[in-house]
């Protein structure tokens, strides 16, 4: 019953989203506030209807209603409750429903927002409605999440969710990722609305800022969770493989980062207006492309899911329609946009512009590398794959310069900066970076100059971000009381920026260190035998069985001792056998220290030459790997802190907003 109600609600959502487009567009054209208001109401109703459908799916999963195909294929009565719920978005159909839920949710929040001027809001609500109609239509007609199975085929027990996906980080990964991905839809809609109005100005840049910040921060968390899951669950010892599916989530993030910075220029100086609007369209276009790449399976990926070319084609059509229309509108309207304020080569806006060029180029090289197999196959049918070395080299070559100039950016003044003055303020940071490089060369390895440069770069960015904050609060130059007062008076946006910039430095430090000095080893051990890795000694002690809620496992005990002979930990890697689905999954054991991980994976039992048993033990030593995940979390935290800045809600926004609201005709 609830299932049919849910199906009905989803069909209703499609009708409502079409009504949302029609009412808002009519309201905009006739300048009729009542019609536009009805469009906003429709946006909220669409969300409510999709939420009802989503609730029905969750209900079906929690009650293990195997008459619903999605549940039968992806759930199991013995599964823990968390994974029953997470199973709702583990399948293709469920994840599209989650996508629609978040898309309409953002639409409803935008419709409820009182800050946007009449014309812009009506166009944006209509655009958001059109996106909603496309995706809800796809869901209703091609990917029904609540489809029933015929009564006779109904199974007694479900197929279960892939055991690799039964993990807390991965349960939370899709909601965060989608909240980020789809958050850019609002920016997309506002960009389209601004292009229709022919007006991209500082006030508009300020309106898109909270949406960009929210989407960017959530996407950062989502990508980090996914990477963290791949690190500790998949047993390969790495955290990023430049897999097409990873790239699909990373490209919107890169362009979103560029957008955050270019919107700041548009907001403060009115410059880069059409570029910002283009990025606003581009970020969500890449999000949609990510959905297409992941869900169509056109690219070989270690994460590829069961594929369905027909649906892939439909997603491609949606991508083509939405992005094509927006880009055509851009091509038509962008030349008419007024781009005020030229800027000098040494200024805050020039540094942000450089950031944008580098990030856009980085997005482009990732895009080329990701799509090249498709392009090549289309040209001469040769199947190829592009490996991680391509991405490591091109991406690093473009992002390293961005990191080098990063500390200078926030210290430069708008309009005309004072470069010698800025460099003077950064000499401490430069000394720290140099010290870090020398210390790395002296203490870790005198030969790996490239890694030392990476460590120096990370230290430079962290120290530079802190130097900028110290400069603002006049640390060491004013009495402590004043420093405290200044620190408290500093807007949260400024602290957010410092935190995010320090975060990227922390990440770079970790990535450089782990990349250069990670070690791996694999050996077949019988009981009592040892292997050595990075100075640590691993000894296989014993093996035993254990029973989880829906799996059986063989668990090994591996004694890990430090170079000085003391015990680091008793690692307990497992091999889990899931009865439902019959899959075997390796359970990784990680012995964490403050910054480093000893990462142990067990292989299956094999007969040894002497008649006993051996186990293939693989181990990875990942120094400073903690920083790789801590950095992005700092960045997301910085983004969220910025988002909570009161200035975003009042000040310029309300002033300009009220002025606009009084004369809706002027918003044309």
């Amino acid at each position: 019953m609830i299932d049919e109600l849910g199906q009905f609600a989803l069909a209703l959502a499609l009708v409502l989203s079409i009504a949302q487009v029609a009412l808002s567009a009519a309201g905009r054209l006739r300048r009729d506030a009542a019609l536009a208001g009805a469009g906003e109401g429709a946006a909220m109703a669409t969300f409510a209807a999709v939420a009802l459908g989503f609730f029905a799916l969750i209900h079906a999963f929690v009650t293990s209603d195997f008459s619903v195909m999605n549940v039968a294929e992806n759930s199991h009565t013995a599964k823990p409750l968390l994974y029953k719920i997470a199973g709702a978005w583990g399948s293709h159909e469920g994840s599209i429903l989650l996508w629609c839920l978040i898309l309409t949710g953002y639409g409803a929040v935008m419709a409820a927002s009182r800050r946007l001027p009449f014309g812009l809001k009506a166009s944006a609500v209509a655009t958001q409605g059109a996106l909603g109609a496309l995706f809800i239509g796809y869901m209703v007609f091609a990917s029904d999440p609540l489809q029933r199975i015929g009564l006779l085929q109904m199974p007694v027990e479900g197929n279960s969710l892939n055991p690799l996906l039964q993990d807390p980080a991965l349960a939370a990964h899709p909601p965060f990722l989608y909240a980020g991905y789809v958050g850019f839809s609002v920016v997309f809609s506002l960009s389209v609305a601004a292009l229709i109005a022919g007006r991209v100005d500082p006030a508009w840049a300020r309106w898109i800022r909270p949406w960009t910040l929210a989407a960017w921060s959530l996407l950062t968390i989502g990508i980090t969770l996914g990477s963290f899951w791949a690190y500790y669950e998949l047993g390969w010892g790495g955290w990023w493989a430049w897999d097409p599916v990873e790239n699909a989530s990373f490209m919107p993030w890169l362009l979103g980062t560029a957008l955050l910075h270019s919107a700041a220029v548009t907001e403060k100086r009115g410059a880069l207006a059409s570029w910002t609007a283009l990025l606003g369209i581009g970020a969500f276009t890449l999000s949609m492309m990510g959905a297409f790449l992941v869900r169509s399976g056109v690219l070989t990926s270690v994460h590829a899911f069961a594929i369905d070319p027909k649906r892939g084609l439909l997603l491609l059509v949606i991508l083509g329609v939405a992005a094509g229309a927006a880009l055509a509108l851009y091509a038509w309207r962008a030349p008419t946009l007024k781009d005020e304020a030229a800027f000098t080569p040494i200024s805050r806006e020039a540094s942000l512009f450089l950031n944008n060029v580098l990030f856009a180029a980085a997005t482009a090289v990732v895009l080329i590398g990701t799509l090249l197999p498709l392009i090549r196959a289309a040209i001469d049918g040769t199947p190829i794959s592009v490996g991680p070395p391509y991405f490591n080299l091109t991406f690093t070559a473009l992002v390293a310069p961005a990191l080098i100039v990063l500390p200078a950016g926030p210290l430069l003044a708008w309009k005309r900066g004072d470069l010698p003055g800025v460099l003077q303020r950064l000499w401490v940071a430069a000394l720290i970076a140099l010290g870090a490089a020398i210390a790395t060369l002296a203490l870790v390895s005198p030969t790996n100059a490239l890694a030392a440069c990476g460590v120096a770069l990370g230290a430079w960015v962290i120290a530079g971000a802190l130097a900028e904050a110290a400069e603002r609060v006049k640390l060491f130059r004013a009495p402590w009381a004043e420093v405290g007062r200044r620190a408290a008076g500093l807007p949260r946006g400024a602290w957010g920026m410092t935190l995010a910039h320090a975060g990227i430095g922390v990440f770079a430090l970790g990535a450089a260190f782990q990349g250069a000095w990670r070690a791996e080893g694999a050996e077949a051990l019988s009981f009592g035998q040892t292997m050595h890795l990075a100075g640590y000694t691993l000894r296989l002690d014993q093996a035993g069985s254990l029973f989880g809620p829906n799996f059986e496992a063989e668990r090994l005990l591996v004694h890990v001792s430090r170079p000085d002979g003391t015990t680091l930990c008793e690692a307990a890697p497992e091999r889990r056998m899931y009865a439902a689905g019959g899959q075997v999954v390796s359970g990784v054991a990680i012995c964490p220290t403050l910054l480093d991980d000893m990462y142990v994976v067990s292989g299956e039992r094999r007969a040894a030459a002497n008649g006993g048993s051996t186990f293939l033990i693989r181990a990875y030593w990942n120094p400073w790997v903690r920083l790789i995940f801590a950095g992005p979390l700092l960045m997301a935290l910085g983004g969220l802190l910025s988002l909570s800045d009161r200035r975003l809600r009042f000040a310029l926004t309300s002033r300009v907003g009220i002025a606009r609201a009084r004369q809706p005709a002027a918003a044309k």
Partner: protein
Amino acid sequence: MSLLPKSRTARRRLMTLAVAAPVLVLALAVAIYAMKGSISLFYTPSQALAAHVPPGQTIELGGLVRMGSLFKKPDGEIDFVVVDKTTASPVTYKGEVPDLFREGQGVVARGAFDTAGVFIATEIFAKHDEKYMPPELAAALKKQGEWRGDGAQAPAYAR
């Protein structure tokens, strides 16, 4: 200064170009340079034989794992044979095979042939889903008329 255009717009465009062009050229140059070493081609065993893939060149080898060919040595290495309709290639790999690796099913391995013609795999592609077949492999099998749909029983030559 006289070389610079007079109009403000033109100057701004020139400056934009001056910043953007070197970055784009750098990006392009690095991208082309990096591609040389990291593009690997996909072959099935018979395609690899026909193309005379030189030993040491990194490629991706795809096909079906012949039934009964999987041999796990005590030292942790595994041997198996990848076949297509006409040709078989022995493969060795040091490490644990992905959780969904099965005899009689499709597999894609990255690595290179040694001089004796044994394929030394450095990576075996894992899958999230037992129904999944890498698109290149599916296309190659279809071309040989050997495509039987997802999860079908292994053909005679792989048994």
